[in-house]
């Protein structure tokens, strides 16, 4: 156990020394990785901020049931009874006066409602079904719309669904891009490590002759790959910070023009940690693949 720890420390020190010995190539590799990772990073943050805009709107799909103005009391009771059935999660009655008051309170519509001589709005129920799948929502809306005394049942969630669907495509795009650039990162790391292995050919051969195991020889290169990946992750976060700094002012100006206090949110500490862990792991993986392959080459040309 102590010997194992000693080996880890030894390998880490060796890896740090190797990085320090070639500052320019270390920096260039980190930059290449950073730029590669920052592309899906920018897309991810952009989508996150866009989702936040969408998130201010009702996320729960609701059905607005507008009642006929000449509805009878018996029909009223029948509708209320229907809405108590178990497929309805919640139902709220909105009297026409309350609806008008809400409309008046809405920004920019005060002038319109002030000009009205009588309330044009019907009484309504806002219904939230238990099953929120697209088909179930459509079925419930259809059924409620056919009840006697109901003028119209309107599914509010349609446009929100469309936005969510668009965002889902964006998220899938983030994953796709991340996967592609993850492969690129493994390749960049592998290539950098391969050069290191070939440069240390003599050391590897001599170490073998005096009793080094595969793990002993591989270990400093794995640390090297992980450290290089970590530096790449830091570079990516640097790229994102710069991009955020450039975009913040124009985005907030646009938001102000729409009367919103929206501002760009930076990545959270957890997201930053995840990116660093991810890049370090990929650097490690690239190193592992490369060192395993190169070691066989080195030994074959002994």
């Amino acid at each position, binding site marked *: 156990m102590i010997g194992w720890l000693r080996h880890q420390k030894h390998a880490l020190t060796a890896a740090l020394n190797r990085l320090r010995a070639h500052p320019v190539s270390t920096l260039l590799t980190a930059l290449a990785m950073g730029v590669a990772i920052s592309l899906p990073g920018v897309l991810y943050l952009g989508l996150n901020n866009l989702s936040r805009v969408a998130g201010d709107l009702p996320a729960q799909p609701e059905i607005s049931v507008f009642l006929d103005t000449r509805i009878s009391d018996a029909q009223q009771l029948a509708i209320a009874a229907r809405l108590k059935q178990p497929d309805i999660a919640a139902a709220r009655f909105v009297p026409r006066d309350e609806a008008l008051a809400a409309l008046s309170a809405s920004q920019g519509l005060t002038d319109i409602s002030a000009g009205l001589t009588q309330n044009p709005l019907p009484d309504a129920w806002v219904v939230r079904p238990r099953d929120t799948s697209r088909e179930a929502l459509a079925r419930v809306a259809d059924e409620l719309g056919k009840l006697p005394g109901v003028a119209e049942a309107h599914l509010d969630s349609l446009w929100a669904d469309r936005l969510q669907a668009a965002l889902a495509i964006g998220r899938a795009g983030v994953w796709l891009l991340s996967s592609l650039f993850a492969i690129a990162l493994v390749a960049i790391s592998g290539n950098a490590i391969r050069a290191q292995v070939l440069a240390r050919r003599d050391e590897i051969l*001599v*170490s073998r*002759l005096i*009793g080094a*195991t*595969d793990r002993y020889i591989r270990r400093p290169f794995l640390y090297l790959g992980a450290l290089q990946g970590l530096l790449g992750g830091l570079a990516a976060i640097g790229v994102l910070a710069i991009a955020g700094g450039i975009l913040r002012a124009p985005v907030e100006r646009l938001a102000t023009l729409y009367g919103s206090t929206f501002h760009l949110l930076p990545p959270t500490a957890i997201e930053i940690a995840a990116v660093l862990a991810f890049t370090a792991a990929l650097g490690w993986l690239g190193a592992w693949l490369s060192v395993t392959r190169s070691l066989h080459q080195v030994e074959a040309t002994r």
Partner: protein
Amino acid sequence: MISFSQVTKRYPGGHDALSGVTFSVEQGELVFLTGHSGAGKSTLLKLIAAIERPTSGVVSVSGQNIGRLSRRAVPYLRRNIGLVFQDHKLLFDRSVIDNVVLPLDIAGFDRRESLKRARAVIDKVGLLSREKANPVSLSGGEQQRVCIARALVSRPALLLADEPTGNLDAGYAADIMAMFRDFHQVGTTLLIATHDERAISALGGRTLHLDHGSIEEAAA
């Protein structure tokens, strides 16, 4: 300690470096291996350290069958064998002491303890004043002594030397051979491939003569 039984080593291309070699070396023996260049001396040493595998026959070292040794077990075998090379195989990106301490680092010893042992063995080969030097600045004889120090630092029971004095002038060669005699006296088993007749007569000991891949015991 070492036993060869009907060992043949054929390299790709059909050249037999060794054919039907049988001999054994007991613990604590000092054995010279002689023969013209290309007679198979290096191949024989490589078989013992599992650098090469026999084509047929059995090579056994400390009771382990080298031909059947798994790749994972090879490093542990080599940690018990000190290897001295004609071309030294030193690393020129580090100091003398870092070269010598390498086997102990590989075995995972405490660093401070390792450095102490490395310094002691460097002292034994007479290079203590040069421990911080880069081996590239040393003469051939001094480099060979560093190589010997590295082979001995983990106190192996067996030392294999391939032409240790091949590139050295007579004075240095005698120094190195005297060093080997000292190690023999403290119980290390030595197998030295050489064609330095003077060294053999000075140290005595058993001589195995290789001729075109076949072995014969020379009269002592």
